[in-house]
């Protein structure tokens, strides 16, 4: 569980720091890894299989997120020709 927390924290740090859109998505995947490790560890600790079943659903969500997120990234890249998140500052309210 500690490992899961550490992975999640690293993912958060990466998401906040990196400016490349693709790497930001990779960092969300690192966060998913942390959550998965936590699910498995907790399921093992309480001795049932629901942790692992939920881990499978996390996998599904990760696949969905990767597909949609990368589609959005490709669309944004075609519009501006860069992957820099700072270029989208104008979307600020």
């Amino acid at each position, binding site marked *: 569980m500690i490992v899961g927390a550490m992975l999640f924290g690293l993912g958060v740090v990466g998401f906040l720091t990196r400016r490349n859109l*693709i790497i930001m998505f990779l960092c969300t995947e690192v966060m998913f890894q942390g959550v998965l490790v936590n699910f498995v560890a907790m399921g093992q600790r309480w001795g*049932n299989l*629901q942790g*692992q079943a939920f881990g499978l659903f996390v996998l599904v969500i990760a696949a969905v997120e990767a597909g949609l997120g990368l589609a959005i990234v490709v669309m944004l890249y075609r519009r501006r020709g860069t992957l820099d998140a700072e270029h989208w500052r104008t979307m600020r309210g």
Partner: protein
Amino acid sequence: MQDWLVYLAYFVAAIGSTAVYAALPREGAAPRKSFMIPMLGLAIGGVVVLLNKFAGPAAQSWYSIILVVLALGGAVRVVTHPKPVYSALYFVMVVLSTAALMVVCGAEFLGAALVIVYAGAILVTYVFVIMLAQQSHRGPEAQVAATSDFDRHAREPFAAVAAGFVLVATVAGVIVGQGSTPSTPMPNSPDGNTMEIGRVLLTDFAVSVELAGVLLMVAMIGAIALARRRFPKHEEGPAYQPGEIGRHVKPF
């Protein structure tokens, strides 16, 4: 009740966050490796000590310690590597080591699914998009494009590392502070892990499985719709009218 373990967790989180702060790419000189590597080693060693004091027997074997070190080191490199392709490859390392960690923990099916779905499908998609996005910078400035400006400078590194430190410290403190209650043993069925998961999925979570399938299909449709909407307008090169292909433009 285990105060010193909680403080040890805080301490490990603090050391790890300073190491990550030192390792993040920034303006100016190369990352300070002489400072960063011992700090990282100290942090990961602290994690190992915590695991030894706290976790169950599955987490104390040598395999899982090696895997934990691999996963955390790989994750640090994913976050800090300036080149996206390398960062994706380090993410493969993270995925493989977490999958092996799950196999060690007794979740064989989830480990296999992790390797197939993450290291197979998702990573291929990532590498594909990275290649697609960097291909247009081809030319003399290829080296510059490989580590372009926004890849080399981190954004607000201190605030982000501080936020990560607070998060990790609180979560790890809570996890450690509640003490290590002896884990109830997994009911050991003769059918094995995969069959048990299948039984749970199709009895207790049957509706959720169907919902997940629907969600995947909706996401697929959405991804296709998103990716092709802007395509004809912004494509470089001669734009062909729809009926033109086959008349004077060869299709192949």
